[in-house]
């Protein structure tokens, strides 16, 4: 009797598992189709950066890369084609992963890495977010080592064909159903609209000052793994003899890294960049053309269209002078 019950349970469990696997594959197949048929939005940008980008200038970084560099302006002034592979919320490990895959396909003339000192701080989310590489792992095995940063069992989880699209459903649905209302990117560049106001900046200064007092006693050093990713990024460029510019783009305050207790990480970026002869380090965080200019910022972290166009012009002139 007892054995019959166990066998009955096991048979039903096996049958249910088969149904589940079938449904998972079906849904996974549909999501894959939708994902790789995206024509707008950040998924399509990532797919393009990974599989197709062959421009002379490749830009890497996080949201500040996506929002601050206009390839049209840079191309117009420098005479070189340009693509912005940055992605919102992603940091140096992601930049290194995308750079590695890009360089295996194409060697650009120049690489721009937009980096913020925050990226070298201790923050496990920068690794968790590497899960956005999951849809590409089937085609690009090089990404497996990066997704292992998300969790130890990440490669095994890929047995599920739906899992690579985890947390993407809303964006996929939005970009597919309302593609007309989704803002089109200009070679990966997506400027932010709107402008900050003076009271907003004053309020921000006040909050940052309070915050700085609170976090001043934190003496955490830069995270070794993140530093290694930065070095790996620069090593990859150096190995391929690619001129590289490591850029800290403008901030609304001229002492943002001091208030955020990140001067150590900022100096470390400069020091590491200085170890490579092919690398130029540019820090615009104290540039008076941007500091305390709310009309050039959409929010406290990002330039708006006006600010990013002005900044892109400055960068393009630097490129023209250096190349």
């Amino acid at each position: 009797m007892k054995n019959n019950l166990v066998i009955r349970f096991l048979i039903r469990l096996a049958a249910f598992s088969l149904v589940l696997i079938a449904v998972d594959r079906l849904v996974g197949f549909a999501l894959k189709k939708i994902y790789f048929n995206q024509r707008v939005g950040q998924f399509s940008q990532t797919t393009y950066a990974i599989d197709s980008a062959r421009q002379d200038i490749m830009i890497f970084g996080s949201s500040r890369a996506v929002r601050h560099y206009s390839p049209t302006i840079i191309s117009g002034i420098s005479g070189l084609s340009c693509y912005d592979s940055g992605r919102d919320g992603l940091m140096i490990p992601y930049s290194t992963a995308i750079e590695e895959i890009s360089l295996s396909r194409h060697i650009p003339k120049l690489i721009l890495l937009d980096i913020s000192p925050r990226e070298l701080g201790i923050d496990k989310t920068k690794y968790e977010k590497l899960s956005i590489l999951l849809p590409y792992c089937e085609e690009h095995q090089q990404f497996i080592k990066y997704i292992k940063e998300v969790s130890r069992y990440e490669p095994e989880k890929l047995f599920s064909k739906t899992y690579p699209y985890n947390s993407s459903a809303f964006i996929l649905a939005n970009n597919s159903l309302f593609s007309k209302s989704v803002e089109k990117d200009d070679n990966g560049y997506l400027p932010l609209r709107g402008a900050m106001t003076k009271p907003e900046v004053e309020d921000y200064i006040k909050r940052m000052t309070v915050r700085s007092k609170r976090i001043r006693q934190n003496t955490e050093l830069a995270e070794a793994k993140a530093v290694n990713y930065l070095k790996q990024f620069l090593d990859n460029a150096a190995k391929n003899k690619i001129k590289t510019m490591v850029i800290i783009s403008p901030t609304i305050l001229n002492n943002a890294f001091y208030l955020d207790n990140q001067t150590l990480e900022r100096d470390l970026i400069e020091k590491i960049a200085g170890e490579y002869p092919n690398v130029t380090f540019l820090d615009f965080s104290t540039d008076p053309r941007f500091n305390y200019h709310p009309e050039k910022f959409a929010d406290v972290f990002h330039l708006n269209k006006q600010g990013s166009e002005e900044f892109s012009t400055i960068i393009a002139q630097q490129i023209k002078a250096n190349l």
Partner: protein
Amino acid sequence: MLFNSIDFIFFYIIVTILYFVVPHKLKWVILLAASCYFYMAFVPIYILILGFTIVIDYFAGIYIENEHNPRRRKLLLTASLVANIGILFVFKYFNFLNLNVDILLNKFNYHNPIPYLTILLPIGLSFHTFQAMSYTIEVYRGNQKAERHFGIYSLYVMFYPQLVAGPIERPQNVLPQLRIRHKFSYDLMQSGLKMMLWGFFKKLVIADRLSIFVNSVYNNPDMHNGTTIAIASFFFAIQIYCDFSGYTDIAIGCARTMGFDLMRNFNRPYFASNIQDFWRRWHISLSTWFRDYVYIPLGGSKVSGKRRYLNLFIVFLLSGVWHGANYTYIVWGMLHGLYSVVYVLIKPYLRKTPENKIAGALMRMGNIALTISLVTFAWIFFRAASLHDAFTLIRNLKSFGARPFIGDGVSNFAQSVLAIVLLFILEYKIEYYPEKFNFFSSPNVILRWGSLAFTILWIIVFGVFNGGQFIYFQF
């Protein structure tokens, strides 16, 4: 070991199979060994602390039962309680107390010579300490026979499904079950697995999704305006419920698959229409622990008005202290104490629910909304890293900016809102229509399997798989 990890899934499958395969007399050995392994997956050395309290309480139970002199019985009980609370004090409260002594002495320009302990708090210490204490108290009261089998007693304290975050069980419920010959039950197995699935859903799809937004706000209390803080605080109220009740569902479900019946810990607390009702529905095993071992011994409600209010307040204050060595928890407990005292005071003057259906429903909705608001306000203290942060958040609550922060993209925020809506629909159904739309147990196989497969896929598509540990593990 975290329930929401791949390691746990392997562990659970192996332990459950072994449990049913081995002869009855060895089942406790399997469960005890598995529980030790489960606990040692966190910090192995801390198993010794558990071992220490187990030895003390095991012998205390036997000595108390054998002792007929009331004074000596009381002395033995006190010794056992002091040992348990002493360990809890050393690991959980010593550094906090020392810090306060430090601050006080500094004010008078004295140096505090007592060094700080460089130790981590063992996971779930408060839970198994309370469970162990309930054993010696029940033996002392004569409600429970002392357990002579050391292995069975150890398993009572260490039973892995409820070892690190409860439910805080009573010996009368668990000890007899550890001796029963549990046979494989198809019904219990499937009902337990479904309960675990629902627990995983609450943890991965709701709690961990909401935590992304909550963390981004609460980790930067100075940076946000009132609308954002209000949203984050409400999200936290839902997050902590789904996190903790999700854990409990997995624990109860996991135990049920092996034939064990653990006590209920939650009963849809956000449908409570007053603060007393809330505490009858929230963390029931802890509330009843405090009721049975603190509130009633203090005189409960059978004492004069003022004393009763004081008793109520003390219970909630202790509940706050139980949660952690931080003023935030103490204030949280005091707030709930205050709410409860005020409720008892005004209860005789409250209007009864009108007979008119619509008016009654509206009144009930209003009461639920008020209860949620009070509870959510108290959660601000619970979630904030310090009292300073909590007051900063409360101060900033007044500044309603034009643009609320929505966190890391619209997608995450939208998924958070969807998760809350889903939870509400499901809880509403269970609260008001418990017999209807039970798809998980529908006699129609397509509906049953379809709903189960849909839930699992929903977890895969919308779950957060790197959300980390359960909030209550830290206690």
